[in-house]
């Protein structure tokens, strides 16, 4: 396990950059795919641990982006401070979503969808601050650190890769903790879990906050990579839908599945499907997803998973 981790890290941090250095097109695609990966982890954490399916993660992505961009352009905050602040802004916004936690499954999903729409309208209407539907342009990029230019394609790749790996690590830690066990118990037996003293509403709220923070952070990072925001882009439903597709494709019940699913789907779509069909290539993606749900509903990672006993032995 440990050894596999080291090999993977060496691959991501050394081999990929060395092979791709200079190939800015592929590096850009990788950065974009990792942005979707971050959203997919954020979505899967709320879905798998919190037991809540969100149709509106674009809200966190958009809020994080706008908050960070405005903090830098209007208040002059350094970019590397504004990006985590974008995560905090998404958490603050998620506080307004807390009443929706009492709703069950599909109603929660729709409530979050509505919230995302409200924030998009706010971003359009508060034009004195947000630039309205024209949006914000010339958002400053990532800075230099120790002489290394983070705003280069390679720099952005390292930053977003580290963010996604950190998200996975946090997700795994929570899942293995006592909180994770209690959250797992809550899915099918909420009363039985509450009666022994678990404050289920508080645990779910925390999962919403952590998920919102991740989504906001990724949205903020993205704003400083593309240097431009408009409501239709920042709150685009693609930021809600792509993570779901990726997480289901990769296996939303696993820790790394959603991230891997995002990278695979995004790259295959851009490099293969787009070559075959320059317009409407998403159709192929839709068909693949439908096939996945029909034939391997637990996702891609399940196919690689060892038998349960072996997996259990490997833990000790």
């Amino acid at each position, binding site marked *: 396990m440990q050894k596999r981790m080291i090999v993977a890290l060496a691959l991501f941090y050394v081999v990929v950059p060395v092979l791709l250095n200079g190939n800015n097109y592929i590096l850009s695609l990788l950065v974009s795919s990792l942005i979707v990966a971050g959203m997919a982890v954020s979505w899967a954490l709320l879905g798998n641990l919190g037991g809540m399916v969100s149709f509106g993660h674009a809200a966190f992505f958009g809020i994080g982006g706008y908050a960070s961009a405005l903090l830098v352009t209007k208040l002059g905050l350094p970019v590397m401070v504004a990006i985590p602040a974008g995560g905090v802004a998404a958490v603050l916004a998620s506080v307004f979503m807390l009443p929706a936690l009492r709703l069950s499954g599909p109603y929660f999903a729709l409530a979050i969808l509505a919230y995302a729409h409200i924030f998009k309208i706010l971003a359009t209407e508060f034009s004195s601050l947000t630039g309205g539907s024209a949006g914000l342009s010339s958002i400053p990029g990532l800075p230099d650190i120790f002489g290394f230019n983070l705003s280069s394609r390679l720099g952005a790749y390292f930053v977003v890769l580290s963010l996604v790996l950190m998200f996975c690590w946090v997700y795994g830690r929570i899942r293995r903790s006592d909180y994770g066990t209690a959250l797992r118990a809550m*899915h099918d*037996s909420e009363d039985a*879990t509450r*009666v*022994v*003293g678990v404050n289920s509403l508080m645990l779910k709220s925390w999962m919403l906050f952590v998920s919102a923070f991740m989504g906001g952070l990724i949205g903020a990072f993205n704003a400083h990579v593309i240097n431009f925001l408009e409501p239709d882009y920042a709150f685009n439903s693609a930021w809600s839908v792509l993570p779901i597709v990726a997480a289901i494709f990769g296996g939303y019940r696993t820790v790394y599945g959603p991230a891997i699913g995002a990278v695979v789907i995004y790259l295959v779509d851009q490099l293969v499907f787009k070559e075959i069909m320059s317009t409407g290539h998403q159709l192929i993606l839709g068909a693949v997803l439908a096939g996945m749900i029909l034939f391997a509903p637990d996702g891609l990672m399940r196919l690689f998973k060892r038998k349960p006993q072996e997996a259990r032995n490997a833990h000790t």
Partner: protein
Amino acid sequence: MLTLENVTVRFGGLTAVKDVSFSMGTDQVLGLVGPNGAGKTTLFNAISGLVRPGGGRVMFNGVDLTRKPLHSRAHHGLGRTFQIPQPMHELTVRENLLVAQRFGAGKVDHKRLDEIMDFMDLGDQADRNAATELALQELKRLEVAKAMATEPRMLLLDEVLAGLETNGKRHFTARLQDMHKRFKIGILIIEHDIETVSSLCHRVVVLNFGEILADGTPDAVFRDPEVVRSYTGGGEDA
């Protein structure tokens, strides 16, 4: 000390629990009896926070629990079991107890968990999936073990002895008595079998159509002609 003051629960037009008042200390084992549909489980639900009483108060050790959320009862030292066992799904027996201990008692003590599992004869089941790999009687023991893991001062047991044959019932009854004495836990138990109630309980409260029909020592209560009538007339299976 658990004190109920005029507790009333209504479901639409049906008054399942009506003006129920009584007090009991943690030094007592109290039997709650009455025909099916008398409102015993509903009264447990009102005490433990699964239903909001339409009227009255539930006090425990001087704290008014009536409007407190479900999960907080465990923190005040009130535990309960479910008539139809409700194991926490996806978890093993040990994980069930671990969650109860961690979040109910606020600490993790694996030695104590082993002790509880042994006490409830669940030691061999520790790593089994609670929802799918246990027999009904094991599930009932898990109910008690989970409640114990929250380190309660008072336990509400809903028909945990039902369905056991005579020997099993004696064995389990002895365990409960032992638990009451050793860990100083007050017990409020719903049980139909008169012999068991008589041997286990200091006191019996009889519920009929949601109201208290009698309250006293087992001897006195089970000789009360009105109680005998409600028992024989209520389509009782005990």
